[in-house]
């Protein structure tokens, strides 16, 4: 049996209607949580999403259309949470919308600032809004990120820059709110095959990688979602301000060395 340790608790997941956001919401819901999922206008089929929760026998999620880059929307989200539930126990900052960069021509100030607004700032704005509207901070915050800040990823210039900013602000929030019943951590993942993966990199990148690594190398939504849940489960309550990578160790072993090691099997 899945222990229903989140029964009666409320969890907000931005971008919670698909991909990693939806998977994370389902992990919480399976443990009894009331989830609130935000999505951008017209980007989700609410009935299909609700059906996923019903299959688990989990509480029906509240689905709200809200753009994380719009402060007005943030206010509406927290007013809705206040009216319906009056509390927020965990917040998963997942939605992110940075401009992808294909060439130097795409490096514009406007794209940079827009990416920062939509990918770095929402985490801070939502944490502050929780205090403003609900009177207290969530006990647990998990911010989704990737290995982009440290290592090259195609088209990722602004995504990586905004994630780096989010990670740094996460550390400072951990310091500033250390006197509260509050912990915040970044969960990095990479190579999860979601719609966002193919949208950012194109399907070709997957096919390229598959020539070198087995399908099990790719990380699944469920696996990363379980880590997000574990960070909010109580088992990691002494962990705050940290960056945790969920990648099976793939980043460590990413490079020409591992290809060289396997060159015979790969026919190289």
């Amino acid at each position, binding site marked *: 049996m899945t222990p229903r340790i989140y029964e009666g608790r409320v969890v907000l997941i931005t971008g919670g209607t698909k991909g990693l956001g939806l998977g994370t919401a389902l992990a919480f819901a399976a443990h009894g949580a009331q989830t609130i999922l935000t999505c951008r206008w017209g980007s989700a089929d609410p009935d299909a999403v609700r059906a996923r929760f019903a299959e*688990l026998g989990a509480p029906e999620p509240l689905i709200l259309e809200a753009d994380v880059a719009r402060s007005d929307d943030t206010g509406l989200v927290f007013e809705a949470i206040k009216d319906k539930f009056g509390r927020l126990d965990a917040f998963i900052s997942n939605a992110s919308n940075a401009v992808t960069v294909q060439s130097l021509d795409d490096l514009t100030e406007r794209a940079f600032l827009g990416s920062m607004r939509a990918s770095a700032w929402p985490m801070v704005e939502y944490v502050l809004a929780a205090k403003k509207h609900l009177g207290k901070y969530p006990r647990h915050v998990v911010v989704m990120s990737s290995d982009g800040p440290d290592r090259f990823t195609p088209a990722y210039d602004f995504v990586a820059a905004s994630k780096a900013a989010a990670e740094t602000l996460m550390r400072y929030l951990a310091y500033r709110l250390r006197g509260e019943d509050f912990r915040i951590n970044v969960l990095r993942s990479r190579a999860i095959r979601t719609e966002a993966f193919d949208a950012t990199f194109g399907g070709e990148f997957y096919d390229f990688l598959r020539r070198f690594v087995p399908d099990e190398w790719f990380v699944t939504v469920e696996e990363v979602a*379980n880590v997000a849940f574990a960070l909010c489960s109580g088992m*990691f309550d*002494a962990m705050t*301000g940290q960056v945790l990578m*969920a990648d*099976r*160790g793939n980043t*460590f072993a990413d490079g020409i060395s591992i290809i060289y090691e396997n060159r015979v099997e790969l026919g190289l």
Partner: protein
Amino acid sequence: MTAAKNWNDFRGRAVLVTGGTKGIGLGIGLAFGRRGADVTLTHKWGSADLGAVRAAFAEAGAPPPAIVDADVSQEDDVRAVLTAIRARHATLHSFISNAAFAPTVRSFEDYTRRGLAAAIDYSTWPLVSHTKAIAEIFGAYPRYIVALSSEGIDTYQVNYDIVAAAKASLETLCRYMNQRLREHGTRVNVLRTRFTRTESMRAVFGDEFEEFVEKHSPGVFTEPAEVGEAAVGLCCGLMDVIGGQIVTVDRGANIFENFSRLFEERARGTLTPRAGPA
């Protein structure tokens, strides 16, 4: 969907914690025991009160632990510990490499090759020697391996030179072992802490350290029970995609335990040296 349904239930699972009768090791043993695990604790030095250890398990509602006198650096001891577990269990679920010993360094003159070799023997190599012996005796690697490490590798800690060197090499081997053992379904991770109120901390940093830190830089101690919970977290099935990672559980002290923080909070007024260095 959502795998790991019974993640909080360790009944019937064998867990080995080296250096498990005190401090962080005991905190970890209790966290597993509380969830029903059959826990084996090894100990060697010092005089752990074994009655108190058993009482703590009973109080936690945990099955009685097996407590074994064994030296982590001695092959025969390691094999005897594992053979005893093998008599009760077909597999070892989780191996927690916690025991460590290294000479304390008070000045550069205290650096000796022998001291570093001893630190490697007692604090680094047991991770490898136990893992090899587990594979031999059980015919399989444990599903989860967690090695305990600490701050002091990236930032200076008083008297910590040789311990830190051994821990750095432990962390590196964890990353490589994760890569080598992943095809066997084994995850190897490091759990790092900073300051935990234990005998080991007092032995390395001195008896006055705890009070001094509490007075001048409060809020940076982590409890053994908190580290124990995190160790269970890494072995419970929810975090199977975490491999080869350094997981820091220290209440965020690695972010803010510095001069800047002391300056920011100087209004507390405890830090008033008579004068700066000449």
